[in-house]
């Protein structure tokens, strides 16, 4: 019951984030919504592991948290510099 309430709240919030990711006017809204969706996915995996009595799901949640962060940073770097390698112009641009 406890875990059902928590996972229901997380699922509803994921639905809101998904609507914002589909309807966001700028690309930053979409990145924000996708990042939020990924964080909610980490929480949902952790809650589902406890819900089904298998807390080993936390390994998957841990890996997903790391991949989500790296993916967000990579997408932002791509949309700022238009490349995933070193920044092309300037020497003080490499702080993202």
């Amino acid at each position: 019951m406890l875990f059902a309430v928590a996972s229901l709240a997380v699922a509803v919030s994921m639905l809101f984030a998904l609507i914002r990711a589909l309807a966001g006017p700028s690309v930053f809204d979409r990145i924000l919504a996708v990042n939020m969706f990924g964080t909610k996915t980490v929480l949902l995996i952790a809650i589902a592991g406890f819900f089904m009595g298998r807390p080993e799901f936390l390994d998957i949640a841990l890996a997903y948290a790391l991949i989500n962060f790296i993916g967000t940073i990579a997408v932002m770097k791509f949309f700022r510099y238009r490349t995933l390698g070193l920044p092309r112009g300037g020497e003080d641009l490499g702080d993202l």
Partner: protein
Amino acid sequence: MGELSPLGLLRDGLAWVLVLGGSGFMLVGGLGVLRMPDFYTRQHAAGITDTSAAALILFALLLFAPDFLVAAKLVLILMFLLLTSPTASHALAQAAVASGVVPLADDWRTGENREAGRESAKDAGAGSGPASGERQ
């Protein structure tokens, strides 16, 4: 969570308080991401769910950890979320500022709108955010 010992009841009550608080923050933050008028306010709403709601729900799960390894993994997930989520928020806001997204708020020095041709925010949720690529 079915035993009737005083310690079990205390744990269940504390877990309910944490889960209800975290779910409230989660729903409020999701609604804010859907309904707030511009990008920076939406980011504020998303930051609530990434820190407060996630921390409360993970603390509630921590009360039900069967052994030390599961508790350590939960603390590790919480630490990663609390380290990476503000970093991602900061980088995203910096990228938005550098790319010329104008905040909806008035300038605090002059009291006039930063964006000259902005229509009144009657359809606040849908399409009033400025385009991503324009530079002022």
